[in-house]
């Protein structure tokens, strides 16, 4: 076989490998969603501290869901759906669907009186979602975030009322705001120019 033909065939194999990897690469950046939900939690906590309204969490969460759906829909239009993205997305959708009716019902029934328990359950559930996502994505930073949430869930069971709020606020800052900003920075760095495939 002539050398140029052999080189062309090797180029074709390289092109196939590159393009398959491009498709499978986790191109979507969800850092913004972590920051958004950190702000949602802060807003709900501030509203609750202000007048102890039972509507604080439902209203802020509904606004958070609406903003998330709108932004995610606009971003998703230009991104392919991969099996991995669907698996990770399903974890977070299931988390939201589990949390909202549970806490809404507990709040409306007046049974959500123990702030420690509330923070501990939320932390454990967020630890579960972050932990599962980190295993799927093989992302150690997100695993660290999950560990912080799990630790928060345990600590919330033992600390005083005053410290409970502080611990929860710190966990939100570390695992939502800081991790979200980090995710946005990493996602931005991954968007590099691609090799043309049409020549």
């Amino acid at each position, binding site marked *: 076989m002539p050398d140029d033909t052999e080189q062309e065939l090797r180029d074709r*194999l390289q092109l*196939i490998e*590159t393009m398959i990897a491009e*498709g499978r690469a986790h191109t979507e950046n969800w850092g913004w969603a972590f920051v958004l939900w950190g702000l949602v939690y802060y807003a709900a906590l501030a509203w609750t501290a202000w007048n102890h309204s039972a509507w604080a969490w439902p209203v802020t969460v509904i606004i958070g869901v609406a903003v998330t759906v709108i932004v995610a829909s606009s971003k998703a*239009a230009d991104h*392919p759906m991969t*099996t991995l993205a*669907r698996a990770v997305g399903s974890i977070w959708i299931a988390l939201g669907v589990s949390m909202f009716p549970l806490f809404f019902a507990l709040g409306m029934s007046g049974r959500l009186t123990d702030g420690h328990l509330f923070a501990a359950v939320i932390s454990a559930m967020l630890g579960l979602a972050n932990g599962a996502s980190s295993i799927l994505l093989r992302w150690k930073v997100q695993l660290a975030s999950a560990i912080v949430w799990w630790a928060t869930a345990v600590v919330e069971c033992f600390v005083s009322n005053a410290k409970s709020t502080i611990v929860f606020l710190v966990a939100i800052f570390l695992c939502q705001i800081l991790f979200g900003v980090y995710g946005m920075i990493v996602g931005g760095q991954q968007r590099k120019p691609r090799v043309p*495939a*049409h020549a």
Partner: protein
Amino acid sequence: MPDLPELNPLVHSRLRLALLSLLSGVDHAEFTWLRAKTQATDGNLGAQLLKLEEAGYVGVEKKFVSRKPQSVYRITDSGRQALAEYVQSIKKLLNLGPPVT
């Protein structure tokens, strides 16, 4: 002299090969994403996708999202098989892998 496999001409085109490879790594993908990844022009990309569609290698779903037309492509089973056979043929030509059975 051993029989050398023929390379499928529909798959062998560089852009069509790139498109099949891209689509094999995702569940589905939008036209603009394929354009960004291949850096092809709208006309060329549309023409090559049409050839793949006519060959039954890709499927297309056209819809409107926020009043904007959107074409979503996905590789079919025949497209996946054609790509696999093409890879096997190249490997056989390069003596990199087992012969195609």
